[in-house]
C-alpha cells in the first residue's frame, strides 16, 4: 500500500524555517479543543496522527511505543492509541478512561487538546474537557454515520458553551472515498445541530490512519473535496474572550505586605479596567475608584479579561476573598435564588434538600439544590426529575443562605460557571452553568411602577453604597450621562 499523505508531505512541506516558526506561532493564545466520538471511531488515532504529523512526538517516545506494543499499523507507524493512553489500566483494557491533555503546534498557532473517552460511563469526563474548550471535534465513522453517542456529545459540548464544531467524518477510505455518503452524514448532522442552535460547523472527510485531511490534504484520494484540512480549520478558529462584557474581578486574595499597601489580587473574568474607573464591591455594594493596576513588571494603565492583576482602590473598603469587584454601570446579578443547568459527575446522586458547597471563581458558599428536570439525551427532551444520577444533565434551582453573585453562562463563561462539592466526601459532584436569577421576592414585584431619578454622581454613589440599595441592586438600572442629556430624557417623559 502506498501512502498518499507521505507523498503529499514531500510535495507540500508545511514547516517554515525555524526562526520564522518560533516567531509566528505566538500571535494568539493557544486554541483549546476537545475531541469526542464513539468508541472505535478512531479518536486516539486522530490525535496520534495530529501529534505525529506536527512532530510533537519524539523518536524516543515512538521507540517506547514500539517496544510496548511490538506492533505497528499497516503504515509502519506506531500504534497511536498507545501513545495517548498513558495509564496502565488503559493500556491493559485498550480504552481511554480519563481526560488527557495534549500539546502540539503548527507554524501558525499552538493547540491544547482535551482527549476525552468515548464510553458512555465517562460522559462526565467529556463535560470536564468541554468546559475549557473553544472548539469541539466530533468524530464519526463514515460507515456508521451519526450515532446516539455523537448526538450526546454534541449536546454536551453545546451545553458547555462550545459554539464551533468540526464534524470529522473519519475512515472515509473504508467507503472508497464515497462523496455521497459524506454528504449524507453532513446533512444528518446539520439537521440535528439546528436543534441545538449550533451553526458553525466545518465538515471534513478524512482518514486519520492514512493522514488524509488531518495535517496534510487528501486531494489525491478525494479530489471532490476542496475544503480545509482539520489543522487549517483549527488554525482559523476563534478563541473565546470575555473582553466585551462588564468588568469582573473575583478577588482571590488581599495583598497587605505592609501598612502602606493594600491590593486586591485576582484574574479579570470579564471586560477591562483602568485607573479612574468607578467600581462596586459585591456583595456589599460599596463603591470606590481604581487608582492603580499593579503587576510585577510595571504599573499598568489597563487590564483586560484574562489578566492576573493586583488592583488598588482609592479608599478603605472592606474587601475579602470571594468578593467580586465589578463595573459600576454593568453589574452581575445578585440574589439568593438562581436557575442553572448541571452535569452530575459522581455515582452519588445529586439529592434535593442536601446542602452542598458551591464554588464559583474564588467564592465558596452553601447552597440547596432542587432538581427540576433532566435531559434525555436520546430524545433531546427535558423530563421531570427529583434527583440526578451520574452523567445526568439537569435543570436545577439553587437557593443560597447568603447573597450569590453571577452572570449567566451565556454572557460570561467564568462568572456564570460553578462546581458543586459534596461536604461529606469533599469530591466535586457536579459542574454547573447559570441560566438566570429567580425572583425570590415574589409578590413584591407585581407592581411594575418605576421611578427615574437624576442625581449628581457623588450623591448617587452614596445612595448606592447603602445596604438597602445593595440588597435590591438587581432591580435597579443605572446609566451615567451628562446633565444636559439627563434633562433631555426627563423632558421627553414630561411630554
Amino acid at each position: 500500500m502506498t501512502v498518499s499523505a507521505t507523498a503529499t508531505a514531500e510535495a507540500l512541506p508545511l514547516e517554515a524555517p525555524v526562526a520564522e516558526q518560533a516567531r509566528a506561532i505566538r500571535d494568539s493564545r493557544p486554541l483549546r479543543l476537545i475531541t469526542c466520538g464513539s468508541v472505535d471511531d478512531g479518536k486516539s488515532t486522530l490525535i496520534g496522527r495530529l501529534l505525529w504529523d506536527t512532530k510533537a512526538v519524539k523518536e524516543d517516545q515512538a521507540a517506547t511505543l514500539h517496544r510496548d506494543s511490538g506492533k505497528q499499523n499497516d503504515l509502519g507507524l506506531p500504534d497511536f492509541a498507545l501513545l495517548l493512553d498513558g495509564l496502565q489500566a488503559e493500556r491493559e483494557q485498550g480504552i481511554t478512561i480519563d481526560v488527557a491533555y495534549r500539546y502540539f503546534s503548527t507554524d501558525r498557532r499552538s493547540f491544547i487538546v482535551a482527549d476525552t473517552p468515548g464510553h458512555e460511563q465517562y460522559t462526565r469526563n467529556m463535560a470536564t474537557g468541554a468546559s475549557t474548550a473553544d472548539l469541539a471535534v466530533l468524530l464519526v465513522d463514515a460507515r456508521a454515520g451519526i450515532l446516539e453517542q455523537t448526538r450526546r456529545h454534541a449536546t454536551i459540548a453545546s451545553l458547555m458553551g462550545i459554539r464551533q464544531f468540526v464534524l470529522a467524518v473519519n475512515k472515509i477510505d473504508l467507503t472508497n472515498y464515497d462523496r455521497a455518503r459524506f454528504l449524507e452524514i453532513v446533512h444528518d448532522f446539520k439537521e440535528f445541530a439546528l436543534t441545538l442552535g449550533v451553526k458553525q460547523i466545518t465538515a471534513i472527510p478524512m482518514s486519520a490512519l492514512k493522514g488524509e485531511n488531518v495535517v496534510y490534504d487528501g486531494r489525491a484520494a478525494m479530489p471532490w473535496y476542496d475544503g480545509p484540512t482539520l489543522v487549517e480549520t483549527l488554525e482559523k478558529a476563534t478563541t473565546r474572550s470575555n473582553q466585551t462584557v462588564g468588568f469582573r474581578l473575583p478577588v482571590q486574595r488581599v495583598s497587605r505586605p505592609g501598612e502602606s499597601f493594600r491590593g486586591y489580587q485576582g484574574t479579570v473574568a470579564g471586560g477591562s479596567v483602568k485607573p479612574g474607573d468607578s467600581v462596586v464591591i459585591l456583595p456589599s455594594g460599596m463603591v470606590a475608584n481604581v487608582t492603580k493596576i499593579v503587576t510585577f513588571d510595571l504599573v499598568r494603565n489597563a487590564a483586560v479579561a484574562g489578566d492576573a492583576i493586583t488592583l488598588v482602590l482609592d479608599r478603605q473598603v472592606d474587601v475579602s476573598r470571594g468578593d467580586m469587584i465589578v463595573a459600576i454601570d454593568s453589574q452581575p446579578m445578585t440574589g439568593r435564588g438562581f436557575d442553572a443547568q448541571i452535569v452530575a459527575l459522581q455515582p452519588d446522586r445529586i439529592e434535593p434538600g442536601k446542602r452542598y458547597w458551591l464554588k464559583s471563581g474564588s467564592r465558596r458558599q452553601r447552597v440547596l439544590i432542587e432538581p427540576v428536570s433532566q435531559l434525555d439525551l436520546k430524545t433531546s427532551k427535558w423530563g421531570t426529575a427529583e434527583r440526578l444520577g451520574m452523567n445526568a444533565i439537569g435543570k436545577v434551582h439553587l437557593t443560597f443562605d447568603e447573597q450569590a453573585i453571577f452572570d449567566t453562562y451565556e454572557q460570561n463563561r467564568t462568572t456564570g460557571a460553578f462546581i458543586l462539592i459534596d461536604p461529606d466526601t469533599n469530591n466535586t459532584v457536579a459542574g454547573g452553568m447559570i441560566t438566570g436569577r429567580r425572583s425570590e421576592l415574589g409578590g413584591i414585584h407585581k407592581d411594575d411602577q418605576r421611578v427615574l431619578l437624576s442625581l449628581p454622581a457623588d450623591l448617587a454613589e452614596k445612595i448606592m453604597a447603602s445596604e438597602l440599595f445593595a440588597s435590591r441592586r438587581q432591580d435597579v438600572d443605572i446609566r451615567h450621562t451628562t446633565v444636559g442629556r439627563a434633562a433631555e430624557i426627563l423632558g421627553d417623559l414630561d411630554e
Partner: protein
Amino acid sequence: MSDIRNEAEAKQNATHKPPLDPHLKALENEAIHIFREVAAEFERPVMLYSIGKDSSVLLHLARKAFYPGRVPFPLLHVNTGWKFAEMIAFRDNIVKEYDLDLIEHINPRGAAENVTPFTHGSALYTDIMKTESLRQALDAGKYDAAFGGARRDEEASRAKERIYSFRTPDHRWDPRNQRPELWNVYNGMIRQGESVRAFPLSNWTEVDIWRYIQAEDIPIVPLYFAKKRPYVERDGMMIMAEDPRMELLPGEVRQEGVIRFRTLGCFPLTGAIRSNATTLDDIIAELETATVSERQGRAIDRDQSGSMEKKKREGYF
C-alpha cells in the same frame, strides 16, 4: 528588611522588556491564578524547588503572583546529596538574592545507610532518596499543598493529572479516581492529613519554558548551556565526570567534550547531550528541531514502561 518590593525594583523589572506575546501571557496568567488560589485556600503551602529550569520558571511566577508582597510560602529542596555542585551554588545564590525561605531535606535513613546511585541501582536509590525523602519532608512540615513544576507534556501519566492533584494522607495518587476539574474552578477541600500537589505549569511545553526564560530573562543553572566538560560514557549516556565521588568503572575513559544538559537531576543519572548551544536562542533553535524528548536523558524514567505512573502513585512528584 522591608516586606514590600520597592518601586525601583518594579521599574528595573520593566526596563527594556517587550510585552509577552499572547501565548506566553495566557500561560503566565493561568499559573499566577493557580498560585494565588492555592495560597489563599490552603493553610500550609510549600513549593518544591529542584533548581532546574522548570523550578526557575515556577519561582519567577510565584514572585510575580505575590508581588509586591513576599512569596508567602517556603521552598523545599529534596536533596539527594548527588546534585551537580553548580546546582547547589546556584540555589544558594537565588535564595539569598530573592530573600526566600528555603528548607533542605536529605533522607536521614539514606544518608545513614549510605544509599548511592552506584551501590543501590537507580530504581531503589530514587525510591529512597527522592520518593521516601519527599514524603518525610512533607510530613515533617505538615504541608497541605505542595507546588510542583511538572508539565503534562513531559510524560504520558502526567498528561492525565489534574492541576490540583489530590493525595491521600500517605501521599498516594489514585489516577482512576481523580476529582473532575472544570473551567478554572479548583476544588481545594481536603480532610486533615490529606493534601494536594498543585501544578501551575501543567499546560506549558518545553519550548514554552525556554521561550519564557528568554522573554523574562530568568536566571538558570549554567549547565544548560554548552561548554567543554569532562564526562564518561555509561549505559549509553554521557555522565559528567567532575565530582570526586564519580569513580570510573573498568573500561571507562574520562573524556572531554562540548556538552550541555537538557534536564538536570542527580549527576550520576543525568545524561548530557552533545550541543553547541551557548545561548537561549541556540537552545530554542535546537529544541524546535529536536527528535528526542527531554526525559530521554533521565535514567530513572526508562527503567520500565509506566514507571512514572508507578512512582507517582507511591508519592513521587
